[in-house]
């Protein structure tokens, strides 16, 4: 069979995750077309046999195949690409408008002759963001519809009631005027009767019209319930929920506090700290001196750079000069914004701004120009960017960087969290399931900072851990300890007392001895505290920072 997809490994776990039916079989597409082919009976038989996939599931499965299986036939790949191109225009909502998938017996595994094909040529499905925008637009459309109806009731019925009120007031003035006759004529009584009947009728009608708004409200509620269905269960187990358990809640608060302080939202952090319920976690926080940071940020926002200058003077950071200049520039700009009252102060600051050659000199000239123009410089294209509010924010974040050496962990966690949930949504959109309660690994590849080595055993397709460390064989190939155990299980069963277990490397024909396999430690190596060899220490320190 020429058009066959072969798995890299029959035990590959991913098969279960991408819903491929059997372990010993692999799906191959024989006569695939968007409209189906073959006789009706044949299609029915095949549908019964393997079920019918929606187009999105098919796309996902195919894309997974390209990632997880070796496609040994380039013609087949081209066929797939053509099919996918035609499927792009198909209606995805109806299951089974598509193609027939047949289950075929797996033939003998053939060695791969071509590298793994990527699917970068395929057109992408609409992104999650596009779908979300569509959902939000629909919510807006229904709400606008509601608002339009409410406004029309306002303009129509409230005006009518106002008119009725005016009519009644006019009648009251006319009929019940004390200066006039003491009796109301028969005509007057008829008028009163008609008007009162009309009043009752109008108010009832207005109420009825208002009642009709219920339909739109229910529609909105139904739409929100459907599209924003809320999670009632915990996403993971055991769930590190951050609300009910006191210690976990405090950990969450500590993360938030750290984030607030490092992003310039010091007033929020301060008010959190006043509650003093997570004091024990302050020691582990990223912010080295929250009080000082708070003073600097507040002073800067109030237009006072003295605390910042004082800090620069004491800390003497490498970028002292540029920071000083930025602070002075900001000060001068704020003086110009304040107008003539602060002219003396502005000039004083300008004199302190001793420019070097080049860019600084040009900056100095611009500042003088802005001073000459005064507040009008805000509108001038040449000086407008000097007055940008973002400059101050940048300055705050630059100064915050001295107190927060790295970005707050919560920032990184939330960035990855949103990305991960997006990916999970994509994964689910393809009709695939992930048993969050049981699995020990996320079902999709996530980008993460390379803080630790990550090694997936090529035999077992499992990440190596401390309990299942990677082992270097004598040929240089690295596989996991569990993989070696499995490779030697037969030998161990046959010769339980043998001290020299032999097996073949799965990648090269070299025979291995279990005793010669060496455990690999991926942990970063740091200099021990009691190290006495200063020269070596210096060298390693140099190595650790050389990159």
């Amino acid at each position: 069979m020429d058009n066959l997809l072969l798995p890299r490994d029959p035990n590959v776990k991913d098969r279960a995750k991408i819903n491929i039916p059997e372990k010993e079989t692999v799906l191959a597409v024989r006569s695939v077309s968007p409209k189906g082919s073959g006789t009706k009976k044949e299609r029915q038989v095949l549908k019964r046999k393997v079920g019918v996939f929606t187009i999105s599931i098919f796309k996902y499965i195919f894309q997974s195949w390209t990632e997880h299986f070796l496609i040994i036939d380039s013609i087949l790949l081209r066929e797939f690409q053509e099919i996918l191109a035609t499927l792009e225009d198909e209606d995805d909502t109806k299951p089974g408008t598509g193609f027939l998938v047949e289950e075929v017996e797996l033939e003998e595994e053939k060695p791969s002759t071509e590298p793994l094909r990527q699917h970068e040529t395929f057109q992408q499905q609409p992104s999650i963001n596009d779908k979300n925008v569509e959902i939000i637009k629909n919510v807006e459309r229904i709400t606008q519809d509601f608002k339009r109806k409410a406004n029309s009731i306002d303009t129509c019925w409230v005006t009518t009631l106002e008119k009725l009120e005016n009519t009644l007031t006019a009648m009251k003035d006319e009929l019940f005027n004390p200066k006039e006759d003491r009796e109301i004529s028969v005509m007057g009584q008829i008028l009163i009767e008609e008007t009162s009947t009309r009043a009752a009728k109008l108010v009832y009608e207005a109420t009825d019209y208002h009642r009709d708004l219920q339909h739109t409200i229910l529609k909105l509620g139904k739409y929100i319930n459907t599209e924003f269905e809320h999670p009632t269960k915990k996403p993971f187990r055991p769930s590190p929920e951050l609300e009910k358990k006191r210690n976990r809640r405090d950990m969450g608060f500590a993360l938030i506090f750290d984030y607030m302080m490092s992003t310039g939202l010091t007033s929020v952090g301060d008010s959190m700290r006043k509650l003093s319920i997570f004091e024990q976690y302050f020691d582990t926080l990223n912010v080295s001196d929250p009080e000082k940071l708070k003073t600097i940020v507040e002073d800067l926002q109030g237009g006072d750079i003295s605390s910042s200058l004082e800090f620069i003077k004491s800390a003497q950071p490498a970028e002292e000069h540029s920071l000083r200049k930025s602070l002075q520039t900001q000060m001068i700009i704020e003086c110009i914004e304040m107008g003539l009252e602060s002219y003396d102060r502005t000039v004083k600051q300008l004199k302190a701004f001793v420019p070097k050659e080049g860019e600084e000199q040009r900056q100095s000239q611009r500042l003088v120009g802005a001073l000459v123009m005064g507040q009008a410089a805000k509108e001038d294209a040449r000086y407008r960017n000097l007055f940008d509010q973002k400059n101050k924010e940048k300055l705050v974040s630059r100064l915050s960087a001295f107190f927060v050496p790295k970005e707050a962990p919560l920032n990184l966690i939330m960035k990855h969290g949103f990305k991960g949930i997006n990916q999970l949504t994509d994964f689910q959109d393809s009709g695939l399931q992930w048993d969050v309660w049981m699995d020990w690994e996320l079902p999709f590849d996530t980008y993460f900072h390379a803080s630790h080595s990550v090694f997936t055993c090529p035999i077992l397709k499992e990440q190596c851990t401390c309990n299942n460390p990677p082992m270097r064989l004598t040929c240089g190939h690295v596989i996991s300890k569990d993989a070696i155990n499995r490779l030697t299980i037969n030998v161990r069963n046959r010769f339980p007392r043998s001290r020299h277990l032999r097996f073949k490397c799965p990648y090269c024909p070299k025979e291995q001895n279990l005793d010669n396999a060496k455990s690999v430690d991926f942990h970063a190596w740091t200099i021990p505290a009691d190290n006495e060899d200063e020269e070596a220490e210096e060298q390693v320190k140099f190595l650790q920072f050389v990159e």
Partner: protein
Amino acid sequence: MASGEPSTSEVPTGAGTTVGGKHSKRKSDIMSLDYCTFRVPYNELNVKFRNGQKDLDRAAASVAKAANLLTKKTAGATEPQAKEALQKNFEFLLKQVQDARVAMQKVLKEETGEADKIIMRCHMLQQEQQVNEDRPKRIDKALEKRKFARHICWHLLRCGMIVPAKKLVAEMKMEGMVDISIFEKFYEIEQALLDKDTKPCIEWCQYHRHRLRKIGSRIEVVARQQDIATLIEEQNIPEALAYIKKYFVPITKTQFPDDLKKIMGSVAMPLEISRMRNKELHAENRYEACYEFFIKEAYRLYQLPEHSAFSSIVQMGIAAQKTAMCEPDTKTPTNKQRCVVCRPDIWPLAEGLPNARSDGNKILCSLSNTVCNDEDNIPYLFPSGHVVGLRAINAGLRRANHKVYDPMHKQEIMEEEALRMYFM
């Protein structure tokens, strides 16, 4: 069973599933994170509509009544009537029409206010969701910061940190994006209940009566039970009976007859026996239990999820960075740690979460922390078991006579002892 707990088994509201759950049919799970952003104003709109409709119905009935009174006097008139006989009724009709108009204006204003809130939220969320290549990065960052702040704010509100949440909203200019007022109300009710005052809770129940009845909530019953229990404790039985007759019977007679029987039993039996038999009714912490039950029911009413979206995001964020090699690192100072998950303050949250998945291998040099490859940074295994990249060896570990310095064992080794490795 504590008096603050529901008597029937808890029924989850809606057919919601988890983020990443088994039965999800929605287009986008990520939107479920913003469920509160729309659900709460929708609920407010619904309540305002229903209460407004009731006011309008009442006003219409009053106008009809006034018109009817007037019509009765003027129907089939054949002779003139004295002004005094009609003036009072006419003025009454005018006043009722004025009231109806004012009620209509008020109701519509409130409803459009809520609608405006939803529309404003739609605009802000659209801004966040739309991907625009031409948009400056700083705007993207600001939008991202606002998104983070919104979820943090919801979390703070749920944890009762009203003041920091308010400050966050003010700082981030997110007025109207987060419903602080409902959580303020919750907080107010909490404080009142802890002070043994059920009045704000009962008022809240009456405001949301329609919806509470629809979801079969017992919160009003539980709140009123506390008042009755206090009267029983004070041995003020006549007052307790009057209270039960006036307030308790109408709400329990059809829906919760067991509660009625129980409270009547407590009234009838001597206090000591009642304390023995109905421990939860006389428990010291019954007001705390009542508050806990109130929060549960309030979340059910607004269909707020059991856990904040912030929790889900944090879990996913940690899991996406967690590797099999992660473990709490107490040696390195927190501000120098490369891995977020290994921080001792974050590790407890990471325990039990799944690891991130990486389809490719990333092997780092144990010394320089650079990624090894098969070209210019070939990985070598040192006798200690550590992996050292070729770049680090060339940078400072090479010695004369084909030797390499092993910093781990503090000795020089032969080049052949550093073993080449192949990661497939």
